[in-house]
């Protein structure tokens, strides 16, 4: 079962995209729900808020354990921030799961008036991909194990580390589900 972390943010749009790929999904707000899923989408939203809510919901510890155990995950925007190794321009009490060997800067492109959309050429997709960046994070460091699948102006915006995929943009805000499909295909053999 694929879960979508549903504390806040773009979770409903991600669930719609997963279902459009013909795959069932459930919303994850509690440790019990997390136990039922084999892989997790971590949506966009406000990463500082989500980090707090992970604490309020007593999800931080079980989610960290699942990630440490290798659960496949797809993080977008705030989701990518939560998966990173280190965060700049966050709140002092904000931490992350270090499930991806990347360092990110929150709102690295600026405020909402600087938010943009752009055509991406994505490794493994045959036609260009329209990507929507909302107060997006910038990836400032990449570990050796991290593969870059797409970039904008020399900044990586789509990266993978094994069965973990992360985007600084919002694939759930368009009707194009190719990235969701690609991730689901990649993890098909890994999850039950």
């Amino acid at each position, binding site marked *: 079962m694929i879960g979508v972390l549903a504390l806040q943010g773009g979770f409903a749009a991600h669930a719609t995209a997963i279902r459009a790929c013909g795959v069932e999904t459930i919303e994850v707000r509690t440790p019990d729900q997390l136990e039922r899923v084999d892989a997790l989408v971590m949506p966009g939203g406000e990463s500082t808020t989500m980090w707090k809510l992970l604490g309020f919901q007593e999800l931080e510890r079980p989610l960290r354990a699942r990630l440490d155990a290798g659960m496949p995950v797809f993080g977008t925007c705030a989701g990518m921030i939560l998966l990173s190794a280190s965060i700049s321009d966050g709140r002092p009490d904000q931490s992350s799961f270090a499930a991806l060997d990347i360092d990110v800067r929150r709102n690295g492109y600026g405020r*909402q008036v600087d938010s*943009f959309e*752009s055509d*991406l050429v994505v490794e493994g997709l045959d036609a260009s991909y329209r990507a929507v960046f909302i*107060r997006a994070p910038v990836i400032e460091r990449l570990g050796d194990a991290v593969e870059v699948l797409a970039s904008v102006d020399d900044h990586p915006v789509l990266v993978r580390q094994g069965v973990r995929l992360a985007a600084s943009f919002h694939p759930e805000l368009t009707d194009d589900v190719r990235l969701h499909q690609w991730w689901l295909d990649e993890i098909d053999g890994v999850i039950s």
Partner: protein
Amino acid sequence: MTESTAAESSIGTVRVKRGLAEMLKGGVIMDVVNAEQAKVAEDAGAVAVMALERVPADIRADGGVARMSDPAMIEGIQAAVTIPVMAKARIGHFVEAQILEALGVDYIDESEVLTPADETHHIDKFAFTVPFVCGATNLGEALRRISEGACMIRSKGEAGTGNVVEAVRHLRNILGDIRKITQADQAELFEWAKQLRAPLPLVQEIAETGKLQVPLFCAGGLATPADAALAMQLGAEAVFVGSGIFKSDDPAPRAKAIVEATTNYNDAQILAKVSRGLGAPMTGIGMDEINVAFADRGW
């Protein structure tokens, strides 16, 4: 390695502007009047703050003309938090909106809580890169605002009252009419557009999709965790809480409880847990006691 360049990029598109509203879903946007309150809101898990000089309860009590806040005060709040900062412009006051855009606020609320600057026209919101949220009491009003470029609608409720009754009325108006429109045939859609004083293509789109074109949030009179969960169960996608937090006895725990209630709006066990021992909510006033109905402003 493959590259995209800024030349293919565009800012301020409808998708980018509506996109930020998508990212606020399931969250609580809190009114704050200074940096200290903004930090309390962020600490409590607010997803954004609305920077304004006086909360609606005080605007209501003070009377007089309510205007855009002092830019210095808005900048102080922007410097204090990392979550999005919204600010209010008067209805039709596009220069206040230009100033707020220049300050780099993340969302502008063209708000009936401030004294309207134009009694006929709302701001042309397509002319801006920054996205706008507007209030609505019914579906026609919501669609007129969307046709002017609003990227988020909030049901108006009656701000500054601590009374949820108008918020419920407006949410039910909007969502009830959407439900009815999905059952209408083509001839009836023409009539719906006339009745709503709304563009026919937007009405036809709702008949097809069964939902508003932009995220629908709830505002105006929410004061308790149960109020927030009520709005969410009725179909709001996020909530604004204004006077309800900082006019209560103990704002920080109430703010956190309202955030938790919004996340867990369908779980009565958690709602019971977070509603305990919060101290007195804002006193609140009945609709027969108010002398100005903010919700009547907007055309």
